[in-house]
């Protein structure tokens, strides 16, 4: 697993560097304006300025195909699996599993907080890890949050790269993984090295199985969100693309 992702990481690192070089100029806008999400409408913009979102999406036909694939994957595999699972496992237990996985991926948030010189955030993550691993019974509970008001600091390598000036690059919808862009894909690959699950002495298939289980558990707690997005948006693909970009920008700006 590690060696596998090492190769992917190096290849993607080169791509992101090329992207970063190519993106020092103004943001790309396609001629027909189709990839421009949102208009510069100054009377509508809060002066925070995150309203004008331009997403560079030259792979749109490919991305839409992948979006379609993920949509089917959700309705025909992920959702039924999550529903069956939640029928057997009660919600409090599933919340415990969610917290357990969140706790063991503390290294991802801790290291990336440090890389961004967010010493306080890194300390917070360390404190949460110690408290929740001990008082919270191996991270199944979250007393750090519930009793001591110490909140999770959501940091990842995609954000770290963004803080250091890497642009998003082109927008990509990955099969299975969903919306991303060049920067966040490199970040994702890099963060695999900080996820302790990938260091377990198991086969590639077994490690994939653990990640899949985490995913099914997450889905079981979030059933209905994607359905709602589909139901209330005119074009779910455009909605997800725009929301993803806004979300990542706000994370990087934090």
């Amino acid at each position, binding site marked *: 697993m590690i060696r596998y992702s090492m190769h992917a990481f190096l290849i993607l690192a080169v791509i992101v560097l090329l992207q970063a070089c190519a993106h020092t100029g103004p943001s790309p806008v396609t001629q027909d304006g189709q990839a421009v999400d949102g208009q510069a*409408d100054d009377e509508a913009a809060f*002066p*925070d300025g995150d309203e004008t*979102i331009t997403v560079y999406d030259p792979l749109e036909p490919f991305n839409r195909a992948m979006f379609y694939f993920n949509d089917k994957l959700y309705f025909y595999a992920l959702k039924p699996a999550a529903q069956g699972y939640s029928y057997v496992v009660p919600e409090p237990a599933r919340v415990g599993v969610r917290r357990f996985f969140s706790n063991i991926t503390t290294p991802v948030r801790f290291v990336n907080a440090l890389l961004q010189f967010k010493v306080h955030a890194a300390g917070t993550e360390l404190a949460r890890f110690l408290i929740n691993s001990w008082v919270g019974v191996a991270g199944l509970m979250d007393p750090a949050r519930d009793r001591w008001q110490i909140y999770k600091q959501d940091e990842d390598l995609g954000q770290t790269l963004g803080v250091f000036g890497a642009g998003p690059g082109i927008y990509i919808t990955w099969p299975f993984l969903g919306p991303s862009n060049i920067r966040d894909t490199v970040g994702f690959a890099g963060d695999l090295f900080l996820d302790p699950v990938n260091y377990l002495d198991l086969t590639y298939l077994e490690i994939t199985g653990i990640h899949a289980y985490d995913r099914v558990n997450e889905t079981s707690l979030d059933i209905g969100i994607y359905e709602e997005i589909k139901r209330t948006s005119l*074009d779910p693909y455009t909605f997800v693309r*725009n929301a993803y970009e*806004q979300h990542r920008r706000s994370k990087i700006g934090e």
Partner: protein
Amino acid sequence: MMKKYNMVLPLLLLALFLLPRAARAGEATEVLRADIDRTLSVMRDPALQGPEKEEERNEKIMAIVEQMFDFEEVSRRSLGRYWRARSKAERDAFVRLFTRLLAGSYLNRAYEHRNAKVLYTGEVSRGRKVEVRTKVLTAKGTEVPINYRLMKKNGRWRAYDMVIEGVSLMSTYRTQFNQKIQRSSYEALVEDLEQKVGKK
């Protein structure tokens, strides 16, 4: 040395007078907090639980939400530059339609999280606009930052945008509405919305 002390005392007193003002949450936060508290108490009302009470519950919630949000402002901002070209009747119809779409989706989501805890983490003001920042601690082990953007109109603070996890709702709708109008027409947009609302 003595001279310095003489300066400290008045400054300390001054600080004490200023402190309550600085520490007090903003007016917009207070208005929003009251609206959210009222909404949550309706959602948690033991007499209004269960699917058979959904209609009655939603009616009561909508009465609060219609005061809390300025749906005309929401619609105007979502249509952006296309708002100006519409007649008064068209605008009113659009506001009603869009309100139904938003209510239909967000009431159910909010109801699911009726037992969440809402923390008010700050208020930022820019001119006539204010952003009230909250963090919602869900019962499902997640923390969702939700910021409300408000404007004071006719003496009352009302929200015109919600920013959930950094995603401005109005911005996502504006993107989609613009795309639809550019590729087809305003009439086609209305038709789509009607279909969305009808599907429920």
